[in-house]
C-alpha cells in the first residue's frame, strides 16, 4: 500500500502553489501557461477521485446494453465502448433502445465532471436533468 498524502491531495497542493504563487510572480505567456498547467493538474485530480467508481458503473452498464451476461466476458471498457460505438454508428442501437439514452447521459456527464465542470453547456444539462420539463 502506497503512503499518504494521496496523489489527489498532492496534485491539489501543486495546483494551489502554481495558482497562488507562481502565477503572481510570472507574466505574459508564462503566467497564462502556469494557469493552464494548474487547471490540468486539477483535472487529473478530479479524474483520480471519480473515475474508478464512474468507470465501474460504465462497465456494468455497457455489459447490460450489449447483452453480455457473464461478468468475465465482453472485454475491457475500450473494447465495449468500441462495440457500442459501432452499433450506434450502424443504427443497430439508437436512442429508442431501452437504456441507451440513460447510458449516454450518465457517461457523458461523468466525463464532463472531470474535463470541464464549469462548461456552461454542462451546467445547463445538469439543471435540465434536475428539473425535467413535464411531458
Amino acid at each position, binding site marked *: 500500500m502506497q503512503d499518504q498524502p494521496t496523489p489527489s491531495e498532492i496534485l491539489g497542493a501543486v495546483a494551489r502553489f502554481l495558482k497562488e504563487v507562481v502565477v503572481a510572480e510570472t507574466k505574459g505567456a508564462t503566467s497564462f501557461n502556469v494557469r493552464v498547467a494548474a487547471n490540468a493538474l486539477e483535472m487529473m485530480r478530479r479524474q483520480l477521485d471519480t473515475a474508478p467508481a464512474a468507470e465501474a458503473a460504465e462497465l456494468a452498464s455497457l455489459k447490460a446494453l450489449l447483452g453480455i451476461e457473464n461478468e468475465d466476458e465482453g472485454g475491457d471498457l475500450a473494447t465495449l465502448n468500441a462495440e457500442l460505438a459501432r452499433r450506434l454508428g450502424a443504427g443497430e442501437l439508437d436512442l429508442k433502445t431501452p437504456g441507451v439514452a440513460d447510458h449516454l447521459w450518465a457517461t457523458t456527464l461523468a466525463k464532463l465532471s472531470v474535463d470541464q465542470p464549469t462548461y456552461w453547456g454542462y451546467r445547463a*444539462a445538469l439543471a435540465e436533468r434536475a428539473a425535467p420539463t413535464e411531458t
Partner: protein
Amino acid sequence: MSELAQALDTLARRRLGGDAATGLARMTAGATQEIWRFMLVKDGAETPLILRRAPGGDRVSESATGLEIEASLMEAAEAAGVPVPHVKWVLTPDDGIGHGFVMAFVEGETLGGRIARGEAFAEARKVLTRQCGEALAAIHRIDPAAFPTLKRVTPLEFVTQYRDGYLASNWPRPVFDLAFRWLLDRCPPPPENPRLVHGDFRNGNIMVGPDGLRAVLDWELAHVADPMEDMGWICANSWRFGVEDKPVGGFGLREELWAGYEAAGGEKVDPERALFWEVFGSLRWGVMCCGMANSFRTADPSVERAVIARRTSETEIDLLRLLAA
C-alpha cells in the same frame, strides 16, 4: 532592425507607396498563420497595416487554401459588399518575406466572449445578427467559378470526411457515432447551386465595433458547398459563450440571421437543413478537438494542447442536448 522589419521597410517604399515601415509587432502566435502589425509612414503620417503570412514565411498548413487565394477571396468579398480588411499587397517571391499579404488594420474586437456579453457591444448586438445574415448572403453571391482550386464538397462527402477523421483518432466516443448516424440519415442531397462558403464564419472570426460588424476574417477554410453550412456553423453551441438563448454566436436569434440573409438576396432558409448543419457544426468542432490528442503526441506536446484535446467532451454534451434532450 530584424530581417522582417527591414524587408517590410523596403516593401513600404517599393509596393505600398510609403516612405518607411516602423513599429513592427507580432499580434498573435497563431499555429497556422502569423499576424504582424506595423506602421506605414508617408509624408510624416502613420497608417497601421497588418501583415498576414505563413509561419516562418513559407510553411503551408495542409487544410488551408493558401494565403494568395485567401487574399483574392477577400478582394472578391469586398467587391461583393462583404466588410473585410482591404488587401493592399499580395507578397511576391522577390519581396523576400515569404507567402502572405498586407491588409488594412481594422479597429475592433474579435474575442467572442466580449462580443457576446460585453457592455461595450450592447448596441452592436442589436444589429450584428442581421449584419451577419447580410454578409453571408453577399459571400454566397461570389462566383465560385473564379476559384477553381477551392475544394468542392457535397454534404455527404463533408460528413464522411469528418467521420474518417474521428475514426482515425482511434478512441471510441459513442455520442459521436450516434450523431454521425443521425447526420447520415438526414444528409441533404448535393446542393443544386453550390456556393462559395466562408467555412469558418463564427463569433471569434468576426471583427466587431460598438456600431456592429466591421470585418469578416480568417478565410482560410473557404470552399464550395451547400450555403446552409455557414448558417449552421455560426449557431453551433461552441461559439455561444454561455449565452444560451442567443444561438447565433451568443448575440442573436436564428430567425434574425435568416431574415437578414433572405432580405439581402440569400436563398430561402430551410430550418431543417439549417439544423442539420448546426448539429454537424458541433460534431465538426468535436472532431477538430479530438484530433488535438494526436497533435499533442506528435507536433505540439504543450500542456495547452493537451487541455484543448480534453475539451472534446464539451461537444459530446452539446450533441446529446441537441439529439437526446
